[in-house]
């Protein structure tokens, strides 16, 4: 069985449109104009990772949402799991930038951290 993926190379501003085919574990890349693109296509299909950014509910703060992100990139197919794990999470101010909000989110081995300080606001 073969699978075909489409990617846009992000190695240079040209942005080649790549077609990557996976057939029995064998990867072939089409549409690249330099070797960087070929390499990018291969990596992107083998182990694509992304930083996931979102927000969680925060109490006693200036705003009702606290921006958070995964401390490291997580596998692309885990993005939605990470987002779902953040639903319903409520934290309380004060929070410090870099503070861990969720450990090992969605079993990725990666923590979710706060993107900013949020002071406690008396209301």
């Amino acid at each position: 069985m073969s699978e075909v993926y489409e990617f846009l190379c992000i190695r240079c501003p040209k942005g080649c449109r790549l077609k990557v085919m996976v057939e029995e574990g064998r990867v072939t890349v089409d549409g690249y104009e330099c070797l960087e693109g070929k390499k990018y296509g291969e990596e992107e299909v083998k182990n694509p990772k992304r930083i996931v950014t979102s927000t969680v509910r925060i109490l006693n703060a200036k705003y009702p949402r606290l921006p958070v992100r995964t401390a490291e990139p997580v596998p692309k197919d885990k993005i939605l799991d990470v987002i779902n794990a953040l639903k319903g999470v409520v934290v309380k101010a004060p929070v410090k930038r870099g503070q861990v909000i969720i450990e090992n989110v969605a079993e990725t081995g990666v923590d979710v951290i706060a993107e900013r300080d949020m002071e406690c606001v008396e209301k």
Partner: protein
Amino acid sequence: MKDIVIIGGGPSGMAAAVRLAEKGYDVAIIERKEELGGILDQCIHDGFGTKIFGVALSGPEFAGEFIEQVQKLGIDVYLKTYVKSVEASGKVKEIITVSPDGVEIIKTKSIVYAIGCRERHQFEIKIGGTRPAGVYTAGMVQRLVNLYGILPGKNVVIVGGGDVGMIVARHLYLEGVDSILVVFPEEFFAGLPRNVQQCILDFGIPYRPRTVVKEIVGKDRVEGVILVQVDEKWNPISGTEEFYPCDAVILSVGLVPYTKKLTDIGAEIDPRTKGPIVNEFFETTVRGVFAAGNLVQIFDYVDDAVESAYLAAEGVEKYLRGEERLERPIFINPGENVRTLTPHRVEWKDERPITAFMRPAIEGKAWIIVRNERGEILEKSFRRYVRPSTLERIEISRDILENAEEVFIDVRGL
């Protein structure tokens, strides 16, 4: 009296303030919001700082780095303070501010404006129809979603294939908006390829190239839009109109430098960048008044905006020291295939090369050429690939400018 007052506490304003405070000058920042950080507080996605810090930070993190430095250096910060008017023509400049404490006059030897840009809206891109609720700019949506957790709608149309539009599309997708459609008149997304991949293709968000919103439909709330296809010249193709139901329209149709405050004090504006005319140290046409960041021109990366602020800081120092200027300025003009170019002129005696930022009008392999008015090539550098969505940065050596009255910069395709 202050040595420098910086108007605007976003990344560029903070960068200029930090650089000047490090040099030992007495600096103050005036910010109209209740905290420093500018637009970065709503840009919660990552990718900021790769040039300056060598790692991809989120917007709030990038701002946080600078806020910490501002605090450490003990820079005076006036929050919730609005600049009412400025008297900038003399050596001593007066800034009249309004804040919850009342009206105040701040005296300073120099000013750096770093007040950024604003978003273009539907009346600037000729969208017709009614004026129902549910029409937003992309930045407004970013703010609602990322700071307040409010979604603009369940079925949204995003107008514009630029970077902000794509980033907003991803956020809305992840935050659970049912249906998203991105439309734009170009053949493909106008923003950076990395955003096309990471925001659109990663999630299979639908998009329609060569398509624009002709009309917004709805009485009290948005009920839909009339989409129409366009040709290469963006002219509507008749007979292709289609009603598309949606409950929100999000406009991501470009940014414009917010120059009203500068024209108020008599600074000249470049019709191409729509920002102020500046010299190589980002001084406007009003002596001792500098500009930095997206107020000067729209930068793709905050890192480049910050670099413009560092250049402005060097200029402020030269101004405060009363360093010598050239007898007459050398003009740097956009030549072939250049959409925008900053700076516009060289005015100071200095050794350092001139950093210029330019947006090419063409796409492909190219030479960037510095030539004189007689067409003689003074300097050139090769680019493997240029495109209008990517701002190019070049350095021009000072020695090639000797005896020149003006030079031109061309982008020549191969």
